[in-house]
């Protein structure tokens, strides 16, 4: 039985889609059968980030409305073994599908796939409700910024109300130079506020931009972000992987205390 994971954030532009694409590619590299679903109706993006935009024939709404069979709408990513994309519809809006329909779809996919990753739209409206309807667990993506953390906290509250089994946090776009200067919140600062277990901290990495330019997941490139994403994939599968050295603070005292801290 596959696991349904929604990747969500509240705020837009923090890296949900890039994260979905990379986790999908990473999990498939770890020999898992994965489908990534773009649930952002009207603003189709995941296909572009993955470089599969020219292969779309049918989409999520076609499947739900019965215009095509599920198998016809799934696009296989040839670069990865067992990675499939179910793209969103560019011309429909969030009311075209309901939470009940999403739940039915994800439960069908469970038989076929090990992981079903849902790229959630920004906001807390129906698109969000659709995306979380069938999910077992959530990965919340945030950046070390006031507005992103605030929105993440609201999202976590809504997820708690919807009784998701498990929630994990990804902190994206950490600039180590700024953290050192005291101009960017540390991983610990963010987890303290949100009190959700950390599953990954990603450095702000140029390679991510280069990867999305080319429609290539950064996980396939030799980069710090790629390694961090790969580690997250292993943690999703239940493996314990030590966190990458993302120096939180260079102060002597914090370095000493850091030695005794388990994170």
């Amino acid at each position, binding site marked *: 039985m596959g696991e349904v994971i929604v990747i969500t954030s509240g705020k837009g532009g923090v890296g949900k889609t890039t994260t979905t694409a990379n986790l999908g590619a990473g999990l498939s590299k770890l020999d898992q059968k994965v489908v990534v679903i773009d649930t952002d109706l009207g603003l189709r993006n995941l296909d572009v980030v993955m470089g599969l935009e020219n292969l779309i024939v049918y989409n999520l709404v076609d499947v739900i409305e019965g215009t095509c069979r599920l198998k016809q709408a799934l696009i296989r990513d040839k670069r990865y073994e067992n990675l499939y994309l179910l793209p969103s519809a560019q011309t429909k809006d969030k009311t075209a599908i309901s939470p009940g329909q999403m739940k039915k779809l994800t439960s069908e996919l469970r038989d076929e796939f090990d992981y079903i990753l849902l790229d959630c739209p920004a906001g807390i409206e129906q698109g969000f409700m659709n995306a979380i309807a069938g999910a077992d667990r959530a990965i919340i993506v945030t950046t070390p*910024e*006031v507005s992103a*953390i*605030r929105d993440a*906290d*609201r999202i*976590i*509250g809504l997820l*708690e109300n919807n009784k998701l089994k498990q929630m994990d946090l990804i902190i994206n776009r950490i600039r180590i130079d700024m953290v050192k*200067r*005291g*101009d*960017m*919140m*540390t991983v610990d*600062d963010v987890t303290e*506020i949100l*009190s959700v277990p950390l599953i990954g901290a990603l450095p702000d990495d140029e390679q991510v931009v280069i990867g999305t330019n080319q429609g290539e997941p950064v996980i396939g490139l030799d980069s710090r972000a790629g390694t961090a994403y790969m580690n997250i994939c292993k943690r999703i599968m239940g493996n314990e992987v030590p966190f990458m050295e993302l120096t939180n603070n260079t102060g002597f005292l914090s370095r000493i205390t850091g030695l005794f801290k388990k994170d």
Partner: protein
Amino acid sequence: MLRKSSVSIAKDRVKALVVSDRVHCTPDVYDNICRELYSSLSKYIELTEDDFQVNIKRTQVVITFAGEEV
């Protein structure tokens, strides 16, 4: 030179925002809640302002004093 690090400002701001979002009130109202909780509790329990703290979590309000959580 002696600039306050922007992180401490950010942390104060985000903490205030998160608390007011969690209980649907403005940061001022949160301060009042804390003050009134303190004044009513201090009638029954011996405590000082230093060891009294109100934490508003997403699912519950936690009152902490003398290092113990209640």
